[in-house]
């Protein structure tokens, strides 16, 4: 078993090394395979996608009328698919011209040229598949065998008191994450084979994916804060590299930088938090830290907890550091599904859950977590209501759902948070991959206003996405219903009525925007260009199969894990992990009206014909209402949304709508304060350097040459200045010493 656990992160690492060293040689992608390199000649090929819609129809004819399209289609069985991909990502400027050479080149290969070949996926994907199998064995052993594994590989750092072991801890919490990470990870690998086909960076993509898997596994398996941090930073780097995968596209490169920098803000806090743990406790090993944390005073614990939480806020994209996640959608869609929905963004939730013994010692920190969670949930949902980009809707929904988890963590509903994490990992991975399939099918279109009626042509994608949406919306029997309602019920039972109310409103909004997306995409009339409509077809089997597979846990996870509600089997599984946290405080924080009244054991039990059943009913009703409203506004009477906005009293409607579309201006404020401010600051520093420092050096040189002009026999050029600089420095050092030292 120990070997098996050690192999789990090792396999993707091997895959990464393989892809880096050998991958490039396995793929054969002609650099300039086709003579009619029409992308490169088109000035508008790089036009920004977002605001190019006015000229949409005009653009279309330009890039979609590849001269000998029919002929090429005939020459290659692969051509139709590849050509669509060219539309999907290459032709309309999603990928900049000179990177898309490989795209769709199956249809563009010059006669006699070698056919492209992609083999670099085989080994990485196979290794990840093996990793998945091992993970499942470990998962079964931990969950059903009630085992807990601690595997020490070796002592990584051993100097003085600072001893860090490379060791893995697999308890029920890790096992739950392992389930999500390895399953979604493996499926995304398969999905990517189809999705990335035709991309010149094919091997690079698989190299990054494997590196990401390795880092993510390190993050969840690590047995101490340092390993967690190492994995944390490494997934951050992979996220950066994958968001900017199409690095020649300015918006992608910008989004990658934004993600990296925003995350750094949080990571700085996380790093400082780890340092504080080390300084105060002298260990970073989870067990020891949690054992000794009680010896510190509450103020210190609060600072540590808040610093750790700062890292979580960055990584899990919570307000005010949520701005990077929607932009991260610039990356390829498999990346969005894997990193920005199902795995990496959960790291923050995992961190707080893992560090639960620290957080429960500090009510202030718990309150912060809960409040940030509740606020972000409604804030992000309010933005998602008005987004038109299909991936942006999902991105804000991810932010909002993660916020639910933090909200649950903050009120001490640990298991509910992890439950939602698992079910969200599956259904959001499904939704993102489905959206990739839609984008792929709709000729690269991401704007839902130019979609419609896709269910006629993409049955599998439609059905699976509806299943995912039902889960996200919280419709009964689907996984999201159980996990979300458990969070709300816990909030209610613990007496956070305001939180419960906000959470319920968010649930309504969620159901609305989810089905707004479904109806705009799959129902109604096709609103895009006619030429595109004719090309729409179901995606390749490698892309559809993962959707179908993910639909299974999306339907079943809730039924299996969540019944009976609030006491489902997942509670038994995770009991050991959160046992003490729930014991110690019975999940009740100061501020709850139940504070002091409720004791562990007296806690309320679920009754279907009681309060619990009522809460479930409310949840189901709210979700259904959201779906029905979306149906009425976007299917029955299109245009109702606009009328509704206009009807809001006092003329606030349009303003509120604008604010939501513009993400409540948070990005603009950051741009103004941080980015512009930074530029100003660096300009000022540059000025200082150019004028004052250089001026001083030059002035000193001028002084030297002027004073020394008569004496100098040999022209030594700048060396003299340097010498003078050293002498001046010497004088300065002496002066400082003379004044400072006494």
């Amino acid at each position, binding site marked *: 078993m120990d070997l098996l656990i050690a192999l789990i992160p090792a396999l993707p690492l091997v895959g990464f090394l393989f892809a880096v060293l050998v991958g490039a040689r396995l793929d054969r992608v002609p650099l300039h395979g086709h003579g009619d390199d029409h992308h490169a000649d088109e000035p508008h090929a790089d036009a920004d996608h977002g605001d190019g819609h006015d000229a949409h129809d005009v653009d279309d004819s330009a890039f979609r009328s590849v001269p000998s399209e029919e002929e090429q289609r005939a020459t290659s069985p692969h051509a139709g698919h590849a050509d669509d991909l060219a539309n999907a990502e290459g032709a309309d400027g999603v990928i900049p011209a000179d990177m898309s050479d490989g795209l769709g080149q199956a249809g563009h290969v010059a006669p006699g040229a070698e056919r492209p070949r992609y083999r670099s996926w085989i080994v990485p994907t196979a290794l990840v598949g093996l990793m998945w199998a091992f993970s499942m064995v470990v998962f079964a052993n931990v969950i059903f065998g009630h085992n807990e594994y601690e595997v020490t590989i070796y002592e990584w750092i051993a100097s*003085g008191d600072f001893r860090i072991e490379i060791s893995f801890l697999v308890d029920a919490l890790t096992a739950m994450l392992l389930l999500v990470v390895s399953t979604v990870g493996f499926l995304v690998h398969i999905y990517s084979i189809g999705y990335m086909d035709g991309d010149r960076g094919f091997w690079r993509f698989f190299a990054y994916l494997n590196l990401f898997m390795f880092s993510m596994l390190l993050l969840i398996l690590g047995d101490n804060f340092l390993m967690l941090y190492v994995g944390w930073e490494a997934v951050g780097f992979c996220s950066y590299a994958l968001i900017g995968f199409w690095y020649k596209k300015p918006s992608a490169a910008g989004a990658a930088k934004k993600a990296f920098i925003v995350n750094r803000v949080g990571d700085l806090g996380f790093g400082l938090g780890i340092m504080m743990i080390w300084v105060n406790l002298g260990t970073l090993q989870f067990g020891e830290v949690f054992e000794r944390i009680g010896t510190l005073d509450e103020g210190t614990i609060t600072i540590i907890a808040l610093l750790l939480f700062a890292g979580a806020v960055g990584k899990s994209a919570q307000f005010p550091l949520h701005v990077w996640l929607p932009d991260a959608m610039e990356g390829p869609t498999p990346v969005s599904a894997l990193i920005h929905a199902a795995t990496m963004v959960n790291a923050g939730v995992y961190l707080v859950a893992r560090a639960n013994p620290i957080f429960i010692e500090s009510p202030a920190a718990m309150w912060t977590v809960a409040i940030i969670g509740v606020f972000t949930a409604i804030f992000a949902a309010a933005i998602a209501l008005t987004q038109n980009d299909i991936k942006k809707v999902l991105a804000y929904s991810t932010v909002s759902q993660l916020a639910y988890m933090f909200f649950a963590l903050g009120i001490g509903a640990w298991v509910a948070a992890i439950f939602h994490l698992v079910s969200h990992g599956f259904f959001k991975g499904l939704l993102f991959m489905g959206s990739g399939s839609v984008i792929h099918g709709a000729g690269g279109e991401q704007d839902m206003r130019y979609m419609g009626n896709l269910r006629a042509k993409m049955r599998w994608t439609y059905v699976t996405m509806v299943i995912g949406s039902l889960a996200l919306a919280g419709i009964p029997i689907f996984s999201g219903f159980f996990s979300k309602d458990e969070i709300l019920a816990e909030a209610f039972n613990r007496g956070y009525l305001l939180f419960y109310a906000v959470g319920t409103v968010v649930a309504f909004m969620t159901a609305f925007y989810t089905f707004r997306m479904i109806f705009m995409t799959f129902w109604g009339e096709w609103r895009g260009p006619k030429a595109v409509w004719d090309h729409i077809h179901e995606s390749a089997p490698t892309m559809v199969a993962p959707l179908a597979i993910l639909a299974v846990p999306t339907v079943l996870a809730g039924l299996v894990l969540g019944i009976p509600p609030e006491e489902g089997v997942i509670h038994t599984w995770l009991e050991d992990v959160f046992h003490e946290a729930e014991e110690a405080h019975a999940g009740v924080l100061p501020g709850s009206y139940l504070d002091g009244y409720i004791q562990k054991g007296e806690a309320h039990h679920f009754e279907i014909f009681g309060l619990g059943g009522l809460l479930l009913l409310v949840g189901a009703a709210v979700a259904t209402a959201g779906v029905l409203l979306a149906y009425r506004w976007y299917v029955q009477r299109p245009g109702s949304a606009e009328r509704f906005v206009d009807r809001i009293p006092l003329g606030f409607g349009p303003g509120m709508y604008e604010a939501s579309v513009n993400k409540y201006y948070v990005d603009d404020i950051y741009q103004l304060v941080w980015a512009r401010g930074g530029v100003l600051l660096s300009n000022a520093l540059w000025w200082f350097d150019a004028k004052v420092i250089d001026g001083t050096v030059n002035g000193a040189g001028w002084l030297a040459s002027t004073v020394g002009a008569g004496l100098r026999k040999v022209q030594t050029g700048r060396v003299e200045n340097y010498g003078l600089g050293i002498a001046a420095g010497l004088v300065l050092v002496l002066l400082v*010493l003379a004044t400072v030292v006494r």
Partner: protein
Amino acid sequence: MNYINDLVTILPEILLAVLILVIITVDLFISRANKWLLTPLTVGGLIVVAAALVVVWDTNESVYAGMYVVDDLSVFFKAATIVIGIISVLFAPAYLVVRRIPLGEFHMILLSALLGMFVLASSSDLITLFLGLELMTMPSYLLTGLHKTDRYSNEGGLKYFLLGSFASAIVLFGISWLYGLTGTTNISEIAASGLEGRMSGALLVALGFLIVGSTFKIAAVPFHYWTPDAYQGAPTPITGFLSVGPKLGAFALLVRVFAEALAPLRADWLGIFLVLTVLTMTIGNVVALTQVNVKRMLAYSSIAHTGYIMVGLAAFANTDDQAVAAQGIESVLFYVLGYAIMNIAAFAVVGMLQRDTRRFGGLNSFAGLGSRSPARAAAMGVLMLSLTGIPPTVGFFAKLYVLLAAVDAGLAWLAVILVLNAAMAAFYYLRVVVYMYMRDPEDEPAPIDTSPFGTVALALSVAGVVILGLFPGAVLSLIEVSAASLF
């Protein structure tokens, strides 16, 4: 009897000196076509010296009337010197041959510099110390100007020589004042002479001159002026050596003078030292940010690394707790070793892309290296990650260890500045990676040098960088023993 014992104790030095003579002699008698033999010969000789180092490990003896000490600290410095020597010797020939730079002289001069570093590391007397310093730096000047037909090499060599001599004079002046104050040049006697609490104008002068002279040698801001010119001018693999070899020696000097002789006065020199540390880190990084030439970028970044290492010394000085002080010295030792390996190798990769003698190591040379030479690009990628300080490389651990020392010593603010600087450095290091993997090759890509020696050295260095990052334990325990000889 004593005499023979002394000779055995300095066996590594003797062997190294013999090796120099052997190289000179052999060079005379072999034909031009066979000059390449000098490289394996030198490496073999250095391995023998390394074996001798193993013999004298744990000797901890003072020889030659207290002028010279073979303690574990010195043995560690010497071992690091050997590592630097072997890597440098393997990397350089291919570059030198293309430019018709004589190999015999190169090997001999490089070995002389190594001998200087040996002496420097082992001095227990300021006179020996100065001797070692000169023996190390004189060959460095020569190495910089070794490419005689190249204007920049000449210019760099001359500047380095002029300014270096200036700094040596400053060091010597400081030493003489110290002698005047204490009546001795012996390091441990100075430490025991009760200087603390007797601050005077004279001591101030001694301290000031020593600080300026020695920080010049490690190229700390604002005494770094010579570095970019010298590094840019020198043949690239030699730049790699210059950026770590003399620096290692200079840190040995700093440790001997400030952490040993002037340790009682550390409260007095700490303040100015902190200022220099912050300046060095920050200015080195800021200027490196703007460089588009990788060679020059690495030159400036080596200044920044100097700053990081100085943090370790600052940690030593800022604490009264002996364990924490030892941690500071240990972090210096580990950083110097790790930095040496990764920096030489990084310069060497730049050199490998300068097979075409008109190339100056611009960023463009690296464009598309990922597809042109995956193994070399991967190696350079690892080196850049390590220089940035990303796990699991030695660079990460070196920084972490310095940080820990700083935090433990109560210099958390300095640790924060270091972290911010490291973040800044990520930008220019990772830019190289971006060029390698995300840019198409130039129309006429730079030819790549694929000589076996260089390839072996690169593989060794990268392996060293990764292995030291994954398993630093063994080396750290050696370092612990080494640092203990100071206390």
